[in-house]
């Protein structure tokens, strides 16, 4: 079985995004970039399935300019076998990304596609579901457990109010939630080895997908700020303030 893992280069998890002075976007100049955390979990899960002997190859794919090769190399260092960069400088919407990935699915024909449930920049939470729809595959989103059994995958999903387990027929698309696994760290020998693993570059334009933007960002603003309140001396003062000042209890 082949597993395809689409990954995204995003602002580092620990960096606070700042809005540009002209309110056109978030300022990413000289900001530390990293592999999207949910994508890292997806790569780890694919590698674990391969290590368990249930998959033979893990292919990672990223869409972006040359810079995203850094994240592809990270995924290769974690244990992926092959990488594909879909080269484009365009700012893409989730539907575009899903359509480009559908083309890769057509070419690579993976039985399983594992993606992060959302990217921490656009926070859309759409691509996996859209890819499943475009490729007429089953979807199992927000996974906290993935068990491959024959031609089925049992996926336990994080849902409001608990957990739901569903069975999806292969080929399928799975998106990862936080508790699915704890990604490993790449070791130095594996980082060196990753440099020699294959990384193919395909031009997005060659995939025949209409990438005309359908969403315009009118402006990007700072969220309204909360003012820091007061430090109270003790529990009695706190309860008194909540009762008589804030009137919330």
């Amino acid at each position, binding site marked *: 079985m082949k597993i395809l893992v689409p990954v995204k280069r995003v602002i580092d998890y620990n960096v606070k995004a700042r809005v540009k002075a002209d309110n056109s976007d978030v300022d990413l100049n000289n900001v530390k970039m990293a592999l999207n955390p949910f994508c890292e979990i997806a790569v780890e899960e694919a590698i674990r399935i391969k290590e368990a002997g249930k998959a033979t190859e893990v292919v990672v794919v990223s869409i972006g300019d040359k810079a995203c090769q850094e994240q592809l190399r990270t995924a290769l260092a974690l244990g992926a076998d092959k990488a594909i960069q879909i080269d484009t400088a365009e700012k893409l919407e989730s539907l575009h990304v899903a359509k480009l990935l559908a083309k890769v699915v057509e070419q690579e024909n993976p039985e399983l596609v594992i993606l992060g449930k959302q990217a921490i920049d656009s926070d859309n939470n*759409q691509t996996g579901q859209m890819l499943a729809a475009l490729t007429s595959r089953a979807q199992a989103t927000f996974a906290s457990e993935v068990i491959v059994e024959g031609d089925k995958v049992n996926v336990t999903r994080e849902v409001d109010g608990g957990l739901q387990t569903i069975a999806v027929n292969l080929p399928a698309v799975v998106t990862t939630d936080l508790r699915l696994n704890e990604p490993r760290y790449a070791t130095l020998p594996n980082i060196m080895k990753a440099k020699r693993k294959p990384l193919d570059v395909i031009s997005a334009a060659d995939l025949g997908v209409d990438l005309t933007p*359908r969403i315009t960002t009118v402006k990007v603003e700072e969220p309204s700020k909360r003012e820091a309140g007061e430090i109270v001396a003790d529990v009695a003062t706190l309860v008194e303030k909540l009762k008589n000042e804030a009137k919330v209890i």
Partner: protein
Amino acid sequence: MSVLIIAEHEHGVLKSDTSKVVSATQKLGKSITVLVAGLNVSEVAAAASKIEGVSNVIVADNAAFEHQLAEDLADLVVELAGDYSHIFAAATTTGKNFMPRVAALLDKVQISDIIDVIDENTFKRPIYAGNAIATVQSAEDKHIVTVRSSAFDVAGEQAPAAVSTIDAVKENTLSSFVSQQETESERPELTAANVIISGGRGMQNGENFALLNGIADKLGAAIGASRAAVDAGFVPNDMQVGQTGKIVAPQLYIAVGISGAIQHLAGMKDSKVIVAINKDPDAPIFQVADYGLVADLFDVLPELEASL
């Protein structure tokens, strides 16, 4: 062209998220239809018909929709989509699951997690874990939108609107339901609670979360947790408040032993009143708290419970 809202319900009860989505769409000034898909959902439909502003309710009552699987729901919504210019659902785990599938099947973009409706094709939504708010305009003629329900109020009530039924089920050969494991709790749900008390890494372990129980009982509060507490294995993930968990906006939010990481603040900073209890005076949570108490939570919690 009018608005279609897919109802959110559980155990035969309509969730307040649906009413909040109706509020969000009222600004569009269009007629509003609510779709209730599920099994034995006549009471849900009756409740939906009484939300102020709803012109009619369509019920798809079938075993296929019992577990709200994305493949089944998406096919149903796509079947109905032709009549509507706007298709809305709450950005719950159900809405987040099936709505992008609907959008892709219709070859439309989706606008996720909106917090404001500017006009019929312009919406506001948080990006970068709530560190920025984007105003986005869609060029589509059909808008597929999920709504952050905590950003909107519950709509009023009205005399019941008309309820009709639809019988449109495609066979789902892709996925099937296996089991459901629900968190048992007598307490209100996080996203619907007026008061929330949450614990963080400072709680030290899962057992210590019991210290929050008495306070939650007295305040009728839901109990939440920070991602750090979930990652440390103290409590299950469905208790997580934050960008990667639940987004809440209660009247009162009490953060106990929570430092206030960006990702947690993104999930609760729209609460009306925030109380922080932390022994570290430099914890960032104090910068957003209305009332801060710098103290050891293990000293303070029993005292707080006793004084309520």
